[in-house]
Structure formats: structure tokens, C-alpha cells
């Protein structure tokens, strides 16, 4: 919560006063150590005095009273957190315990530490559990009551749509396919704040972005309406070199096929198109696998349009690593050009269609020595193993040629709701087309002025072209409108007006937008917009019903890609590349599988409305053959993903998933510190402070006799230096428990010849060993985990960082969700019903 580092400080850093010489915080500059010692002793003396008074209080009964809590504070807290010492920058003794809301930010920090059990630090006296808990509860209840009386819902900034939201909005508005145009690639990358790229403050508008919007709107509007003047364009789909093409590549390719590629290609017009195939080559640019003839099957929407035969024309020649052009020049030439004629011209109707290029599997094998599949991809791809199968390198689709018309694409059907019968009703038809588009794009009822703006552009384009070009120009105008690109929330105008700084309930239309961008990362649909226009969303039952409907809708998959993708660092999976010398089995298919698994897993949590805690403890996951091999789960065949039960205790839940384990490792080795930090930040909500500058990278030491040390032994260096140990004592043990998973998430029992020691201990002495026990330990603090999840969800939902003033709302959501064991729908609906989501603070004068 908030950005105050003190709040985040590792709880075990507080110097123990009066015991000079013990570890000091690495950041603090000790100017007067002796003075501190003296004050420390005085503090202890006072604490001793306080003890006697408090002891009296305890005997008189458990009834909570402000002054009794002051006594608790006096005894256990003021020792360090007083005006003179200002430990961790926290001064409690001058605060008025009777009026907590005057210092709410401070007390929220206190609550946080108390609920984590982190304060007083280990070794210092602590009240008994009953008093401890009742104190924390007292603080919470008081602050919650104050917040209910005077809510502070925050004031999210004018909020630009990010790339993902823009693309989804275009899709929902115009039915333009993601395959037809890669919208995110038209715009520059967005920045992130607080871990999410939908943070309103950091989403700025630069001239480059504006140019991007202008050119994107032009392309999109032309594509949506259909551009009859489109010139031929060639689109190439590459199969990444290191994707294994040993098996059926996707559900979209026929059964009994091997390798190849299936793409959804957008054909802009009813016309003829050309398809060219290029096969994979090795490092010498010889085409792989030409020793025997193979067939290539080309299909359009499942219908075969061509079969090619390639290879086997020079079967008398042995395969070799290289050929000299002196005596084998023409065979070498053949190896380099055998795919030159793999081209077919065909007719296709406008729209997005499935194009598949693949090799039908041979039903018989030639006799000879059986070769196992080659797993070392570097060798296989670069040199070309004999008996290797040919593979598709790329498919290029070009066109349109001889266009016959714009056809009937999904987007044309959606947009062109009428077609003019003559010149006289063109303008009426244009209005009929543009009004609903403007309404959905601007997310509010259209005004006469909106229509006029659009008609002006329609008319000027119409005068130079035809009706559809006029519509296209108006559509382009809609897509760069500030009310499309931004979510703007307005303080209520007089007479409804509010006092400055007061909280007010946002309008139904504004609420509809917040709701759809939260759950769908897109614009509201017609049903939601209708209800908002009629003022029905004010009704809590209607609001909840809509929220549940939207969660059940497939569009809520956006939560997986955008929320989970960023919260769990899943987006990094595409960027990691484990070192092929150390992990020769790693390839692009495996990487894809990593990402798919966690996305399907998270989605199953949402769709089955599981408890949030099941993220850690669920006994199922999703694998395909490649991934199952990686996890050593037997008897899984085929490229498609299916649900399996995880019986291995160590693999259960998120912590056993290769995606998480790989993005928290280096390219050549595991990094327990990174894994520990990931857990602290994303699961426990207590991220450590950043390391001091100029930390040298770990010295890779050798042990005795040149035997390499294990990762754990090397990390002892962290403990050796007390300045480092303070944080690493917390982070490293969590990572050690996962050491059995290597840097690609594979299970191992040795590291460099030494057996793995996966034991760890928390700073206050709780031991654990291995992933299963780590998981149990994390689940003994379920509150911390669900609080973290809720805070992350709230950050994502509001598009702003979560502040101390939101803590009462978080607590409220959790209280309600606790009854059902913290199911996802309870959290998500709880957020929708919460004060920060439904209200806004009006501007200060």
C-alpha cells in the first residue's frame, strides 16, 4: 500500500536499542551511536515502568478502552517509536489514541505490521495474543467506522486506454479480427505503474502515440469497411526455427498431420490470392529432410486446395554436412532451391479464414535404423540430422488480385446496418450507421453535436468518393476522438454539485465504463450501456447481476491475460531464453506450453469460482505432451492441452508451474533470491526494499578441491555480510525451498553433483523443507495472501495505486469474502461494490 518504503521495510531490521553492536540497518547512518545507547537504556527503563502499570490494567478486565490501548502502546511500542528515536520514521507517542482518524496513514501502517505479526520484532516483549489481536481489531474497527462516515474514494486521473484496451474496444465496436490487423503493433508500448500498464497516471500521450492513433484509425477503418482499392500485399507467417515440428501442430490442422502451420489470415476482399511455402533450412541454407519425398497439404477453411510433393528427387545422394560446388554443385543447388515452386493461386471470399499448411503423416516408415527424435535443437537445426523430417519455414500469402468486391465480412455486416437506395436517403442511412457506433465508442448517448461532427467528415469524404468512403472517414474520426481514447469522469455540476473534497457517487455511465474495463478490458456492451442509460445500475442487485454476467462472459478472459499476466510476471515468459548449453531441451514449444499452462490454470480458477487460496494448493493443472514430459507426468500424448490431476505434492499449485519458476531464474541457473522476492512481493505482500547500489554480482566460487558449490552454498555469502543478511535472511530461505526446480522448472535432486538441500527457516525459527512444506507455511498466513491479491486486484480495477485510505475498503471486501472461503467471484464482486470503485472525490478548490 502506498509508496512509503518504511511501510515495506523488512520487519527484522530494527536495531535493538540498548544492545549496541547488533546489526544496524544498512541504510541508517549512525551519527550518535552512544546517544542511542543511552536513550535505549532509558527507554527500557521506562518500558519497565510501563510494565507495572499495564499489568494493573490487564487485571482490571478485557473491556477495550482507548486509554488501555495507550498503555499497550506505551509498553510495547513507544520504546522505539517515540519522538526522540523515530525508529523507522514512525513516531507513535505523540499521537492521540482517542482520535485515530486524524493520523490514519500511520495507524494503517501499524495495522499492517500487527496483522503480519511482524511487530514488536523477535526478541522484544509482546502482549498476549488476546490483547494483541484485540488491539489490532480496535484499530481496524475504528478506522473502518471513520471511513464509512467520511469516505475517501480517491480521484482517478483522466484515464487513457492502453494498447490492449484499445484493441479490444476496436474488436467489440467493429468486429475487426485480431488476425486481420495486429493492433498493438501499431502503437508504441505503454508504460506501467504499480505493476500494471493500465495505471492512469503513467498513461501519457506523446506525439508519436498520436501519430500512431491517426494511422491506426485510418488502417482500421479501411479494413473494417473494406478497401476496394487495396493493392496486393504480402504477409509472411514464420514458424520459429526452434519449434519442434514432429507432431500434429495444432487443433486447426487435420488429424494425421505433422508439423507445418495453421494461421488465421484476413482476406480483405473477394479476390484471388497467392500462397507460397518456404521450408526450413539448416545453417548451410540446405533445406532439411529432402532425402525422401514428402507431401505438403494446403487447406483453406479445412478444404484442401493443393497438394505438393517435395523431396526425394535425388535419393541416390547421401546427406552430408556440406557439399562443394565443384563436383556436387547441382545437388547442392537442389538442396537450396527445392521449394521454389511451392506456390498456388486460389480464390477466397473476404473475411478471416483458416489457412493450414502441413505434412500428412506417412502411414508407413521406410526400413532402416530407427532414429529417436533429436532433442538437441542446436545441433539438429543447424546441421541437419539425416532422416530429419522437412519442416515448414514460412508461409506467405499475397493479394488481393483481380478483386471482385468487398464481400461480406463480419465487420461490414456489423457496421453497415443499412445501405442507401439512392442519393436522397444517403444521409439518413449514414446517420443510422454512425449513431450506434458513436454511442458505443463514446460510451454515452449521442448528441446532435456528435452527429454533426461526424456528418461533416462524411460529407467531405463523400464528395470525393462514394458512400462507403464517407462512412470510413467518419469512422476514422470516431477512433481518434478524446471520448473514445480517454475515460473521463466529471464532478457533478450544479445543482447536484458537491462540496470540494467530498466523496460522491459516480454516474451510472461512468460506472459502466469502470466495470467493463475492469472485467473485460474493453467498452461496455449494449446491455450494460442500456441499463446505465436508464439509471438502473444504481440498484445494487442489478449491479451485482451485471458483474456476475460479465464474469461469466468469455470476454472476462482479459483478466487472465492482463491481470494475471502482469501480477504473476507471466508476460515475461515470452522473453526468457534459458541457455541452450545448460538446458538443451528447451525450445519454443516448451516455452509456449509454460505460458498456456498457467493461463489455463488461472482461467479455471475464475471459471470454477475457486477460492483464491487454491492458486497455491490446487491439485490440477493443464498439460500437453511436451509439458508432461518436462514434468515427468506419464501417459500424456498429443499437442493439445488437457486437464490433469497433480498427484505429486511438490508440483501442486502455482509454485510448481514452470512459467513462474522460469521467469524467476537466470538463463544459466536458478536464483533463490529472485524466487524469494517474488513470493514476498506477490504472495505475502511484503516486498523487501531494493538492494543498495553497487552490489557486485555473485562470485561463482569453487569449493574445496575444485568441486563446484551448490547455489545454496554460494549464497552463504549473503549471510556472511550482516548488511546483506537482514533482507536475505527473509528472501533466500523461501527460494531455497524451491531449489529442486531448476531454472526451467524441471525437478532435480542434485546441483552440480551435490545433493539439493531444500530446507529453510523463517527468521522467527519455523523450519520447512521443499515445496510442499513451503506451500503449507504460506497457507498458514491466508490473510496475508488474500489481502495481497485484493490489493493487486484493486490496483488493477481502479487504475491507480492503492493508498492507506483504501485499506478500510480492502478489509470490507475480505470480511465479506471470508464467509465463502475467499472465492474469486466474491473478491471481484466485492471490489465492484466497494467505495473506491463506486465513488470519487470531488476536486479541491
Amino acid at each position, binding site marked *: 500500500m502506498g509508496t512509503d518504503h518504511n511501510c515495506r521495510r523488512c520487519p527484522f531490521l530494527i536495531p535493538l536499542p540498548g544492545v549496541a553492536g547488533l546489526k544496524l540497518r544498512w541504510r541508517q547512518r549512525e551519527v550518535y551511536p552512544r546517544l542511542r545507547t543511552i536513550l535505549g537504556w532509558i527507554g527500557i527503563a521506562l518500558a519497565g515502568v510501563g510494565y507495572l502499570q499495564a499489568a494493573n490494567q490487564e487485571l482490571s478486565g478485557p473491556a477495550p478502552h482507548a486509554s488501555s490501548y495507550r498503555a499497550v502502546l506505551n509498553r510495547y511500542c513507544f520504546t522505539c517509536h517515540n519522538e526522540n528515536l523515530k525508529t523507522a520514521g514512525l513516531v507513535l507517542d505523540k499521537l492521540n489514541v482517542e482520535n485515530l482518524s486524524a493520523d490514519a496513514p500511520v495507524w494503517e501502517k501499524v495495522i499492517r505490521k500487527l496483522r503480519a505479526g511482524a511487530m514488536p520484532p523477535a526478541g522484544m516483549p509482546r502482549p498476549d495474543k488476546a490483547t494483541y489481536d484485540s488491539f489490532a481489531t480496535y484499530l481496524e474497527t475504528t478506522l473502518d467506522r471513520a471511513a464509512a462516515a467520511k469516505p475517501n474514494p480517491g*480521484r482517478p*486521473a*483522466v484515464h*487513457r486506454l492502453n494498447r490492449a484496451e484499445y484493441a479490444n474496444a476496436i474488436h467489440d465496436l467493429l468486429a475487426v479480427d485480431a488476425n486481420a490487423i495486429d493492433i498493438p503493433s501499431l502503437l*508504441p508500448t505503454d508504460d*506501467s505503474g504499480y505493476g500494471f500498464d493500465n495505471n492512469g497516471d503513467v498513461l*501519457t*500521450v*506523446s*506525439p508519436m*502515440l*498520436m*501519430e500512431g492513433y*491517426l*494511422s491506426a484509425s*485510418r*488502417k482500421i477503418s479501411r479494413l473494417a469497411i473494406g478497401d476496394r482499392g487495396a*493493392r*496486393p*500485399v*504480402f*504477409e*509472411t507467417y514464420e514458424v520459429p*526455427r526452434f519449434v519442434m515440428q514432429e507432431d500434429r501442430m495444432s487443433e486447426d490442422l487435420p488429424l494425421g498431420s505433422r508439423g507445418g502451420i495453421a494461421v488465421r489470415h484476413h482476406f480483405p476482399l473477394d479476390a484471388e490470392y497467392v500462397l507460397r511455402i518456404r521450408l526450413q533450412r539448416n*545453417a*548451410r*541454407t540446405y533445406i532439411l529432410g529432402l532425402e525422401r519425398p514428402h507431401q505438403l497439404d494446403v487447406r483453406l477453411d479445412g478444404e484442401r486446395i493443393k497438394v505438393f510433393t517435395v523431396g526425394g528427387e535425388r535419393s541416390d545422394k547421401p546427406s552430408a554436412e*556440406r557439399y562443394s560446388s565443384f563436383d556436387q554443385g547441382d545437388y547442392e543447388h537442389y538442396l537450396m532451391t527445392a521449394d521454389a515452386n511451392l506456390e498456388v493461386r486460389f480464390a477466397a471470399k473476404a473475411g478471416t479464414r483458416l489457412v493450414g499448411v502441413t505434412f500428412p503423416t506417412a502411414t508407413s516408415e521406410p526400413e532402416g535404423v530407427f532414429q529417436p527424435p533429436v532433442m538437441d535443437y542446436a545441433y539438429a537445426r543447424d546441421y541437419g540430422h539425416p532422416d530429419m523430417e522437412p519442416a515448414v519455414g514460412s508461409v*506467405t500469402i*499475397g493479394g488481393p488480385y483481380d478483386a471482385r468486391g468487398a464481400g461480406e465480412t463480419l465487420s461490414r455486416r456489423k457496421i453497415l446496418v443499412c445501405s442507401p437506395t439512392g442519393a436522397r436517403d444517403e444521409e439518413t442511412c449514414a446517420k443510422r450507421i454512425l449513431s450506434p457506433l458513436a454511442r458505443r465508442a463514446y460510451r454515452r448517448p449521442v448528441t446532435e453535436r456528435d452527429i454533426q*461532427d461526424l456528418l*461533416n*467528415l462524411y460529407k*467531405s*469524404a463523400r464528395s*470525393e468518393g462514394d458512400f462507403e468512403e464517407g462512412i470510413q*472517414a467518419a469512422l*476514422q*474520426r470516431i477512433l*481518434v*476522438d*478524446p*471520448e473514445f*481514447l*480517454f475515460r*473521463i469522469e*466529471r*464532478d457533478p455540476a450544479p445543482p447536484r454539485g458537491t462540496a470540494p473534497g467530498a466523496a460522491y457517487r459516480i454516474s451510472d455511465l461512468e460506472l459502466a465504463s469502470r466495470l467493463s474495463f475492469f472485467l473485460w478490458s474493453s467498452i461496455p456492451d449494449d446491455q450494460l450501456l442500456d441499463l446505465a442509460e436508464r439509471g438502473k445500475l444504481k440498484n445494487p442487485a442489478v449491479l451485482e447481476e451485471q458483474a456476475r454476467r460479465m464474469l461469466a462472459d468469455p470476454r472476462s478472459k482479459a483478466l487472465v491475460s492482463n491481470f494475471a499476466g502482469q501480477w504473476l510476471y507471466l508476460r515475461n515468459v515470452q*522473453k526468457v*531464453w534459458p*541457455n541452450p548449453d545448460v538446458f538443451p531441451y528447451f525450445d519454443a514449444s516448451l516455452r509456449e506450453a509454460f505460458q498456456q499452462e498457467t493461463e489455463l490454470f488461472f482461467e479455471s480458477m475464475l471459471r470454477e469460482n475457486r477460492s483464491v487460496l487454491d492458486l497455491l494448493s490446487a491439485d490440477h493443472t493443464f498439460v500437453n505432451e511436451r509439458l508432461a514430459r518436462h514434468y515427468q507426468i506419464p501417459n500424456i500424448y498429443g499437442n493439445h492441452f488437457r486437464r490433469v490431476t497433480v498427484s505429486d505434492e511438490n508440483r501442486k499449485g502455482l509454485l510448481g508451474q514452470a512459467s513462474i519458476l522460469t521467469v524467476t531464474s*537466470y*538463463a*544459466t541457473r536458478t536464483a533463490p533470491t529472485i524466487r524469494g522476492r517474488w513470493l514476498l512481493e506477490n504472495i505475502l505482500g511484503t516486498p523487501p526494499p531494493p538492494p543498495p547500489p*553497487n552490489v*557486485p*554480482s555473485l562470485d561463482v566460487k569453487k569449493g574445496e578441491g575444485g568441486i563446484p558449490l551448490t547455489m545454496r552454498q554460494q549464497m552463504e555469502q549473503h549471510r556472511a555480510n550482516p548488511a546483506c543478511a537482514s533482507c536475505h535472511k527473509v528472501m533466500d530461505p523461501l527460494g531455497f525451498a524451491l531449489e529442486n526446480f531448476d531454472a526451467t522448472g524441471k525437478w532435480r535432486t542434485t546441483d552440480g553433483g551435490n545433493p539439493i538441500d531444500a530446507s529453510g527457516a523463517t527468521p522467527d525459527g519455523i523450519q520447512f523443507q521443499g515445496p510442499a512444506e513451503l506451500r503449507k507455511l504460506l497457507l498458514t498466513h491466508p490473510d496475508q495472501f488474500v489481502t495481497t491479491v485484493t490489493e493487486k486486484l484493486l490496483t488493477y480495477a481502479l487504475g491507480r495505486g492503492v493508498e492507506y485510505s483504501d485499506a478500510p475498503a480492502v478489509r470490507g471486501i475480505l470480511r465479506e469474502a471470508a464467509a465463502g472461503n475467499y472465492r474469486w467471484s466474491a473478491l471481484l464482486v466485492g471490489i465492484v461494490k466497494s467505495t473506491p470503485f463506486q465513488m470519487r472525490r470531488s*476536486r479541491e478548490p
Partner: protein
Amino acid sequence: MMIFKKAMPRRTFLRGLGTALALPLLDGMVPAFARAADTAAKPAGRLSIVYLPNGIMMDKWTPATEGAGFQMTPILEPLAPFRDRLLVLSGLAHNSGRALQGENTGDHARAGATYLSGVHPRKTEGADTQAGISMDQIVAKELGKHTQLASLELCLDTPELLGQCEAGYTCAYMNTICWRTPTTPMPMEDRPRAVFERLFGDSDSTDPAVRLRRIKRDRSILDSVTAKAARLRGSLGPSDQAKLTEYLDAIRDVERRIQTAEEQSSRELPTLERPAGVPATFTEHAKLMFDLQVLAYQCDLTRVITFMLGREFGGRTYREIGIPDGHHSLTHHQYKQDKIDKVIQINIYHAKHFAYFLEKLRSTPDGDGSLLDHMVILYGGSLSDGNSHLHDNLPILLVGGGAGQIKGGRHIRYPKDTPMPNLLLTMLDMFRVPMESLGDSTGKLDLLSV
């Protein structure tokens, strides 16, 4: 791919450089061939940076003698026709590219990041990348006021195809050599079609009527939007207005560019077709990109272009000249002669393509001379010995007339470890964008014009 149907018509000279004359003339900037009528030297008109990755075989690059009578070496031989327009500069170094304590990898990342900035990049794999502002962006900020695009950043290698980056360093350091601010790397474009579209819009041809229509359409859309946004802004509170102000400022910027484009739209451009895809071979791809650059300069669509002929750490193979091995692995030749020979072949191949570029620049008229006369071109790389990852004695050529500020045909050797940023500072002066310092510079280079 490219079909030129018309001959290139004459161009009018650049407008809008009048402010440059007010600056004092700096020592060493007096052009050798200044005409009597010129009381002040003209600033250079265009900047081009062509980058070579992975180091060069220096013993075949560096001429044996210094001064004017030097012998062309095998690698520089393709550039012999332009001998009198180029300066071979030896001895420059990027001290900021060397490894600091704790950095045992990253020479390629540092090479790329320091080349135009002289600032040691932060070692990180995360989002907190930090390098230094690059010299081309400084020039672009100034020259970009007069052109549709402030600068263009081009390359031939897409980042994805080339595998991992150096451990400990994010790929951002190797994917680009241009940094607009210390934390904003400029993405590099490798697709000729995308470059074409940035220059000429996404119409399929450079037909002026089509372009003009598109420009007018964009203009009217932006006018309509501006009116609405101004209305909207008025109805919001001060903190909310800021976002809409940003939006309006961005629009204004785009409108200015559109206006420049409109003013220039009446110029005849050589008719050419939009490139459809990425050419399969290096030579086709490189030549196409060079063609687009010449066109961009010629039509004054931009005056600053940076082009990476290859990416640091890149493993491109040059099958068409009989080299099937990856470039980067070859440069780690371990002193094996066959590998060294191949690297030399690659270096020569690059130089041949650069010569193609220079020939086009020389034969394109520009005002009272050719494009080459008014350009400053930096051709070189940020590593000398690719085998040992050395950041000193860099391979550097300064080519072009620089509007008379470069007196070519000489090989100049600077004292060992003279900072390369000194050259960058000197180049900034040529464009009348003087800076006190850049990266770890210690002053300006002399001997450039004398």
C-alpha cells in the same frame, strides 16, 4: 521491389537554417574551400550513421601510414572512389564501454549503448534500463523542427530471430544504439514496408494526388477533434485538464508535421511501389533500406537517419558470399585463419554496400551540389577486436562533405584512448548544435578540417 519510373528531378535547397549563422565561428570549423562571398560557414545539412557490429579485423582496416597519402586497405578498398570524401580516424576509444567491477559479460551491450552516447549503461535485465542520450537524437531535436520526421532509426535484424542477449543485460541495449533520453531507447525498424509507410503514409504509392488527399483528410479530422477536446477540457478540473492538454499538444505536433508534409507534397517524388515484404537476402534488404534512406534525404522527410547494418551479438550468416557461419561466432575466431578470413570477407561485403549508398548520395543533386556534399556520415563500430571485445582503437570513418567542413582523403591517428565522444561533440558542432560535453568527452577533436 522498387520500381523507379521517373528520373529524379531537381530539388530546392533546404529552408530554415538561418539561425545557424548567428553563432560564432569556432576554431577548426573554417571550411577549407569557403568561397569568398561566405562570411560564415554553412552548417552541415544531414546526418547519417551506419553501424557495424561485432568488431572489425583491424589489421586489414587501418592504413599503414597517416596523412594524405595513405594506401587503401582491403576492407576499405570498395570505398576507393570516395577517398577524397572520407577521413579514416584511428585511436578513438569508448572508455565507458569497458567493464566495471562485477561486470563479467556485456561487452556487446555496452558497445551498442555507448557508441553514440559515451555513457556506461546500467547493468540490468529489468525495466530500469539506463543509458545516455545519443548524439543523433540531439541533432534530431534541432533539425527535426524543419522536417516531417525528426529522425529515422533503421536496422536489418529483428530482435526476435537472434536468440538470447548477454546475461545480465536487457536486450534493449543491443536492439538499438539510439536513445532519446537516458531511459527511452528508440525502436529500430527493419521492415522496408513500415519505413515506406512512415515516410509516405500507408497509401500504396507516392502519387502526389493520393498523398495530398490523405493529408487533407487527416487535417480535417484533427481540426474537428481539436475543437471538441478544447470544449471537453474546459469542463474539467485543473488536474484532469492536464491529460487533455497533453493530448492537444500531441495533436498540434502532428498537425505541424502534416503541414510540413503538405507544403512538400507538391514536390515530385520518384514514383515507386510500396515494398511488399522483407527481402530474403542481406544484399537485397540492405540496398532497399539504403534506397529508402536516400529517398528520405532527397525529399527532406528527415535529416537524421541511423542504420544498423547488423545488431551487436548478431549471428547473421552471409550465404550469398559463401559464409554459412554466424557473424558473431566467427568474430570469436580464436586466431584461426579460416575464421579470420571469413570475417574480413564480411567486413568487405559491408563496405561494398556502404559504397552503394555513397554512390547514390553522390549522384543525387542537392542544392548547389550533391547530397553527399552536405552530409556528415559516421561509418564504424563500437568494438575493434571482436575476439577480445576491445573498446579502443575503434574502426571509424567520417564521410561526406559536411557542407565543406570535412576535408577528406586523410588518415588521422589520435593519441591512444582519445574519447570517441570527442568526435561526437565535434560532429554536433558541424550541425550547429553545440554541447559542452557528451558522455565522457574531454573536448573536441581538432585536425578535422585542416
